[in-house]
């Protein structure tokens, strides 16, 4: 009994530490609301443009690579929802902290650096997600209605969406560590954003990629961020495929976080801020 108490106590304290970061992240997200709103608006305009581009394409053709307009008009909105959390602004500030050397203040705290970032992002993302979810949800319902919704699929979709955010976070973490070597926060985050947008299916469903490219993309982690949750939601994956893909997302998270740990060990060794 006593032993159990001893084990539980430090564990609970540890969780409390990180929960406190969620709170601060959330507050910070609220403080940056104008950045977030403009960023979201930019993404949203992109989604609207995509919506009308696809609409005009489907006016000439009923089916494109197995996608009908019925599917596509859902895909556009769901992809937007998946892409809008863990925004670029937050990632930039992390990268800049590394370049400017302010990261040493984070390293002076008795916490895992990555854990701290994750929970802080979770707080910010929570704010972003709530707003985007309401917005996209209501638009989705006005455009598509409730006819495509299905309980099990929604549950699987939410799981895949969360795991997708996990993958995105792992990739962002790895890229931000590169700032230790390149001293260029903008380039690194921009490169990350373009790579993920293209290979995750944010712009075009991966099924429409040329054969060769599609096979490569299947072996990359990016598809788990947007394509997997989207396909689960709109029903291009069977339930069996959905579960398999969710397992694959989990495997990618494990692999990427392992890689992040190894890279982190190396990167923190090269910290050498000159001055004073």
């Amino acid at each position, binding site marked *: 009994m006593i032993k159990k108490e001893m084990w539980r106590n430090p564990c609970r304290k540890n969780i*409390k530490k990180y*929960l*406190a*970061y969620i709170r601060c992240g959330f507050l*910070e997200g609220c*403080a940056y609301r104008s950045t977030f709103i403009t960023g979201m608006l930019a993404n949203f305009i992109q989604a609207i443009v995509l919506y009308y581009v696809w609409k005009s394409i489907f006016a000439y053709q009923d089916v494109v690579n197995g996608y009908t307009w019925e599917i596509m008009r859902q895909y556009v909105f769901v992809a937007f929802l998946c892409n809008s959390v863990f925004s670029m602004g937050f990632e930039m500030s992390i990268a800049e902290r590394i370049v400017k050397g302010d990261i040493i203040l984070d390293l*002076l705290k*008795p916490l895992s650096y990555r854990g701290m970032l994750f929970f802080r992002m979770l707080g910010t993302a929570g704010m972003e997600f709530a707003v985007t979810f309401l917005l996209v949800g209501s638009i989705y319902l006005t455009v598509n209605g409730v006819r495509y919704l299905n309980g099990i699929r929604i549950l699987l979709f939410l799981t895949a969406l969360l795991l997708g955010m996990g993958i995105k976070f792992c990739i962002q973490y790895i890229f931000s560590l590169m700032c230790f070597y390149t001293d260029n926060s903008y380039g690194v985050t921009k490169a990350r954003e373009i790579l993920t947008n293209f290979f995750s299916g944010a712009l075009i469903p991966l099924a429409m990629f040329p054969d060769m490219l599609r096979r490569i993309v299947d072996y990359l982690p990016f598809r788990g961020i947007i394509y997997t949750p989207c396909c689960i939601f709109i029903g291009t994956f069977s339930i069996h495929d959905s579960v398999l893909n969710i397992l694959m997302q989990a495997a990618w998270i494990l692999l990427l976080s392992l890689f992040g740990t190894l890279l982190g060990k190396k990167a923190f060794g090269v910290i*050498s801020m000159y001055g004073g």
Partner: protein
Amino acid sequence: MIEVKDLKKEYKIARKSDGIAGQLKHLIMPRFDTLEAVKGISFRISEGECVAFLGANGAGKSTTIKMLTGIMRPNEGVVRIMGKDPFSNRIDNARKIGVVFGQKTQLWWDIPVIESFNLLKHIYSLSDRQYSQNMEKFSSILGLHDFLTQPARKLSLGQRVRADLAASLLHEPPILFLDEPTIGVDVTAKQKIYEFLREINREKKTTILLTSHDMKDLESLCRRLIILEKGKILFDDSIEHLFDKYDEGTSLEQIIIELFENGN
């Protein structure tokens, strides 16, 4: 408490020639020079001591502090903070030390200062009593009450440094590292800070290691002085001993200037 032996740190710095041609050349064929910031220093600090680090700009003070706090790996040599290597035990070490870098802030830029303190309470798992007691004490001594609800970006430099100092001491660390803690602080606030430091040094036996360019304050606070010059220790003894070597009436400032000039 703190043990340092043959500590060395080198930086790689880019060697660029002037002008556009020089920049372009560096782009294609970057060259680096190694700069020895700390060239093998050794010292020992025992519990409850208050030691001042003195040195010209670029003497290696901050570099040494960064290695002592466990955020930077030394190239050579040994550091022990309470018997353990700070770099490989970073998280453990972070609980035992408080750090202020006068030029940086650990406060959250865009949310009220009080939230930063609240976060620290959770990070260091402080009890409600310990937290409110310390907050009360620090706020009254350092005068934090006026700006606790403001975000850090709205504070003046002096206010920010005072808040940072309180933040680094909230968990009552046995060791305190201060890198230019009185930068941009006005005279009265400076007095308060040094009184405060004297008090915690006396009451809680907190070991303090600080760097500053303000000699008068160092003199009133620290008994021991370590003077660094170009990465080497020039002097390491009590302030009285330093005065003994010079004519009576010579101020610390004059002695330092003389030391540096001879050192060159």
